[in-house]
């Protein structure tokens, strides 16, 4: 599977990418929503985007809105990976078209479980 990892923290991107590699997946990375849209335009499509909420330039929730406005990205699943853990935030993200939600901090097991729930557990 091809994943796009979107987080302003290089540390979190690095952590997630290591987990993806261990699971046999491919990846690209972006530091904010804007960069992610550019990468999708040039290198898309991706099977799933893993998106942080709080980022400069374009936040994760703005990215979800922008991605869901593009019919050609309808097949891309979106998992929010964030410290924004209030119920209202989760509902907002899901209402705008996010597929799944994972709270930071997370374990390898929790991460792999979520991918499996999304049907994204098959290696690339």
């Amino acid at each position, binding site marked *: 599977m091809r994943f796009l990892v979107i987080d*302003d*923290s*290089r*540390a*979190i991107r*690095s*952590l997630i990418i*290591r987990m993806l590699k261990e699971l046999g997946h491919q990846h690209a990375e972006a530091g904010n929503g804007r960069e992610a849209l550019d990468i999708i335009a040039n290198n898309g499509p991706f099977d799933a985007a893993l998106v942080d909420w*709080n*980022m*400069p330039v374009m936040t994760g929730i703005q990215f979800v809105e922008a991605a869901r406005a593009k019919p050609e990205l309808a097949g891309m699943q979106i998992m929010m990976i*964030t*410290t*924004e*853990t*209030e119920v*209202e935030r989760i509902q907002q993200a899901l209402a705008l078209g996010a597929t799944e939600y994972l709270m*930071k*901090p*997370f*374990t390898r097991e929790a991460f792999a479980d979520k991918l499996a729930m999304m049907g994204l557990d098959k290696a690339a």
Partner: protein
Amino acid sequence: MLEISQEDIAAIVSLVFTTTLDVEVEAAEGPPPSGGEVASSLVGITGNWDGAVIVACERALAVRFARAMFGISDEEVGESDINDALGELVNMIGGNLKSMLPPPCHLSLPTVVAGREYRVRLPGAKVVRELDFAANGARLRIAIAERAAA
């Protein structure tokens, strides 16, 4: 008034460290030793509660945190790696604390500061919680500063 208890804060810090670093944190007695290099990071919270969450730790612990997140050795850890990892550390702690505050509240992007002090002064805000921990033999301090309601 901040309604988050010391126990709540300790539980969140412990969760972040065990999950990300696989390291147990324990409460530490007395102030941390002075004179060493201290790395601090801060996130602001605005909205129904106004203030900041500050994480200050010995540089050695910051290096370890960066090493675990980037999956590299101590020698490979650079200054920008430490800043990035510490920023995410306070983002995770601050974000989880925010979920216990009356909504709506918003989290700022993190800021990292280097120095020799465990205390960061925030004009107009008062430190309402200060907890000292030890992790892997290094000291860590979490402070919550509250801005008086206007």
